[in-house]
């Protein structure tokens, strides 16, 4: 099965439905902001969101009522502080209650790897003598058949759809990422379908340092979406807008200012290009 090339609106409409389990992965780098905004625009709800490090785009999706459940291991604004919309959902159930399936990075990484390998569970030496397992029954124990030692087990994560942003795709739909990749590849391989927005389309891929290449036959849809990771970054294309992350703290602190910002920048924009244009207007 070769990859199909779709518009972002079509790719989201086809792959993300109410109730879908969706992972928009990325570790600070290559966060699929454009795809998250399109999910908000399409007014999806009851989603099970999965990501090691839910950040601003998940804050926005949660604040806009898209999510029912969150599987995660660290939920903050990297280097800045809290995600106020996430906190409001957890602390005050606004705009809706949010069920937490909480892990540690090591456990969630193992869960993605198990998912990618289609094993039902992952094993790690982790979660030792901490309070989390008492609050997440999904964290269990398994005995080593050689040493008798008890190790931590986590259930495999297999999202219905994983959405990534990547630097490039070739004409067949092979996808190349480089730089910090986090658990993007494992999340991609673990998913039932895979949608990738890319900075650029190229004739032939020459994978670079630390390249991750996702063969086209694993890719359900490719979307050409320049700037699709902004305000996060795409190594070799544009930098992380750290000022935006700092600015977001003030916007998201208050429900009213959050809703006004989302309405003007996301709901009223027709696509990611329009979204970026509105930010440019703000800056002028």
């Amino acid at each position, binding site marked *: 099965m070769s990859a199909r090339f779709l518009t972002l609106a079509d790719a989201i409409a086809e792959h993300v439905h109410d109730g879908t389990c969706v992972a928009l992965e990325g*570790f*600070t*780098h290559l966060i699929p902001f454009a795809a998250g905004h399109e999910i908000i625009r399409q007014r999806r709800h009851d989603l099970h969101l999965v990501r*090691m490090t839910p950040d601003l785009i998940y804050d926005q999706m949660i604040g806009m009522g898209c999510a029912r459940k969150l599987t*995660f*291991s*660290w*939920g*903050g604004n*990297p*280097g*800045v502080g*809290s*995600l106020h919309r*996430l*906190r409001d959902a*957890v*602390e005050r159930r606004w705009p809706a209650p949010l069920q937490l399936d*909480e*892990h*540690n*990075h*090591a456990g969630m*990484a*193992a869960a*993605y790897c198990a998912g990618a390998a289609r094993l039902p569970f992952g094993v*790690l*030496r*982790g*979660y*030792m*003598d*901490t*309070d*989390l397992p008492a*609050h997440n029954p999904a964290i269990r124990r398994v005995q080593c058949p050689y040493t008798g030692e008890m190790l931590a087990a986590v259930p495999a994560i297999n999202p219905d759809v994983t959405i990534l942003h990547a630097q490039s795709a070739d004409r067949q739909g092979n996808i190349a990422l480089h*730089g*910090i*990749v*986090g658990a993007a*590849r*494992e999340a991609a391989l673990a998913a039932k379908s895979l949608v990738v927005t890319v900075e650029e389309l190229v004739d032939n891929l020459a994978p670079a*340092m630390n390249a*991750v290449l996702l063969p086209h036959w694993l890719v359900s849809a490719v979307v050409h979406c320049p*700037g699709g990771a902004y*305000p996060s970054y795409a*190594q070799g*294309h*544009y*930098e*992380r807008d*750290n*000022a*935006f*992350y700092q600015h977001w703290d003030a916007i998201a602190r208050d429900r009213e200012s959050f809703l006004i910002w989302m309405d003007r920048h996301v709901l009223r924009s027709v696509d990611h*290009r329009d979204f*970026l*244009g509105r*930010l440019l207007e703000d*800056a002028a």
Partner: protein
Amino acid sequence: MTICTREEWMTIAASRLLWDGCVCFVGIGLPSAACNLARLTHAPEIVLVYESGTLGTHPDVLPLSIGDGELARTATCVVPLPEIFSYYLQAGRIDVGFLGAAQIDRYGNLNSTVIGSYDTPHTRLPGAGGAPEIATHARETFVMLKATPRSFVAELDFRTTAGYLQGSGARARSGAPGGGPRSVITDFGLLKPHPDTQELQLAALFSGVGVEEARAAVGWPLTLAAHVGIVDPPEAKELEILRALHARTRQAHARPVAIPL
């Protein structure tokens, strides 16, 4: 003596604890500043590992996030995150893990999950991230945290990360491979575990700071180590390099990023 902030002093005190060639698992904020200061002063061969998968990185400016492009660009190599946690951390390849937290108790256990109860939290914090397994596997850990009775507490709201558990050898009996928190670097000096009970004790004060200030900042009855040392004030050279690093960082982060349109 050079005049400096307590935060600068903490950073410099922490950097002095690192040795050349040691492999550090670095967190964002004060730990990142301390590790890079060590690299720029007495430990040029220190190996900095960030959980974003950047191994042996040499950032020119401090990263704002754990995954800034600067860390990838200046790394010996970048590996997927699962490898960092399994093939490097769990495999016992890390000498020193640096941790922060919202709360620490007298046995060096940490909370970065919730204030209040887990199900109906007063304040939901970001959560564990990599901390629990860094604390389990690193040969030793350093904790950096400003002290107030709200952060240095008698009882944690939630144990995100294990230190010495209930003390008196409980950690060793737990089978955790790593050695646990060796030093807590705070804004009045250093706490270290008592050799038998592992209760954190006052081990050193910044020169000019009194024991009473330390006791007032800690939410349990702080005892004194057999010998309470003095942390020498920052040297001019240390401060100069740290301030230049921060100045470069501020300048870099103030540079507006073009919207990619």
